[in-house]
């Protein structure tokens, strides 16, 4: 069997790529994609921990389902907000949505 550390490395890499995307991308949609990547990294982790832990305790699986269900709800709201901003400002570039600053 592949050692669990491989899965954890994969998940950490996915999370880091997502994090990098959120911090560097300027497009709101791309930022959203980065966030999704972070959440999916979590799912990889949860599935791996479930499989390598007590297989009869399905906490990890349930949690993974909850995470992607909640992520879907979140994205529905998020895309609605993006569209709403786009209609008004004709842009989804984060730096151009900058009415308020200190």
């Amino acid at each position, binding site marked *: 069997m592949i050692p669990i550390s491989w899965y954890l490395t994969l998940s950490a890499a996915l999370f880091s790529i997502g994090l990098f995307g959120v911090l560097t991308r300027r497009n709101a949609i791309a930022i959203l994609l980065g966030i999704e990547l972070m959440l999916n990294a979590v799912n990889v982790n*949860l599935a791996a*921990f479930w499989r390598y832990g007590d297989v009869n305790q399905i906490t990890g699986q349930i*949690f993974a389902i909850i995470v992607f269900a909640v992520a879907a709800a*979140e994205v529905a709201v998020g895309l609605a*907000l*993006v569209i*709403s901003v786009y209609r008004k400002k004709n842009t989804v570039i984060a730096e151009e949505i900058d009415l308020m600053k200190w």
Partner: protein
Amino acid sequence: MMSFSDFTTILPLVVLTAWACVLLLVDLLIPRNRKGITALFSALGLALTLGLTIAQLGRQGSGFNDMVVLDGFSVFVNALLLVSGLLGVALAYGYVKRMGLERGEYYTLLLFSVAGMMLMAQAADLIVVFLALELLSIPLYILAAFARPKVESEEAGLKYFLLGAFSAGFVVYGIALVYGATGTTALSGIVAAIPSSSTLMLTIGAALILVGLGFKIAAVPFHMWTPDVYQGAPSAVTAFMAAGAKVAGFSALLRIFATAFPSLGSSMSDVLWALAALTMIVGNLIAISQSDIKRLLAYSSIAHAGYILMAFVPFGNPDVRAVSVAAGLFYLVSYAITNFGAWGVVIALEKAEGRGLALDDYAGLGRKYPALAAAMTIFMLSLIGLPPTLGLVGKFYLFRAVIAGGYVGLAVIGVLTSLISAYYYLRVVVIMYMREGEPTTTSEPYLNMTTAFAALVTVIVSLVPAPLFAWASSAVLKLF
């Protein structure tokens, strides 16, 4: 198997959620120009739930296989959240009408958000914590953007959403690591499994949860979204968000760290110390240069997150944990009430198109509307922590708890930053009384009631704080 007692554990929550779902349907039958009825129904639901919550006083228990818990702590926090919800509805009632935002969803979204916050206070399993976090956040994202197509509000909603979803990613990754380290997500199971689990993974997991919830409570350096969101969102939403989201975030933080991770106390306390100190310093310093009242209150809310965080620093020390939890709860009450009052005054002065929000617009308020100016003075004094207000009593208990925990340096930083904060809070008072101006305000019965209620509570409870503090002291966490 589910049993009836599972439901009685979270009875107020069940009632509130069902009420919100039904209200969503009832709202369809209410004509477009009479959405005030929806507001009254939602207030009724909150009041009913508050009654049920109070009836749970003194009861203890857990339900759904220890996923949710009922204890003195949860009852106290739930009562505070429901009062916040009621005040939020009262502030919104006239405001949304005046600003042309009166849509029925406003109140149902608010109810769902309160339900999420209550679930957060009762969560005894990390999965439920995550679920509650999302349930309270998603309605708030929508509410922040509720003034669409006003660009500021949409921008606030989008920023809040992006940062909120980002922080949720941290929380859930942290939870996954804790699950990996201990093999369970139940707080009770985590405590039991800690001695035999990987400390590194557990510590990273706990730190990531702290980062994620740090975004929610707006602690420095995770505060960047706060001023923009608080400024752009409709004021009534901001008032509710500032109080409710903070209370819920802190209650989750407190429950997770105090019940599941007391063994990490020695390594986490330093981090929390730095976080609290940084939040107090940065929040108060940047607030000095603000000329917009909403941004000023946003930075003030960041600074107060720092004060409340002080109560967390000794969480791993069993001797002072009880007194610091009580002090933290007391401070949350004092902050929530004062916050609603201050936002009530802001809403009274705010005009459509975002006018009436500069500090200069408060010039002459003292002469023209002495009652409103007096109320604002009380709230500013309370935010500084001067007598005769709740803010002083709250800070007193808080500093006492911190010193009892052996963190004298942190208490000194707290006192010094309070002194700095006096500068910008008192500036509002000086502008109100010393400068000439012709401010105009809107007088609405529910708004006036909220402001008056907040002012009275701020003063009266500060004179007899013992009963509230006794309640906060008895609101102990159920430990496993």
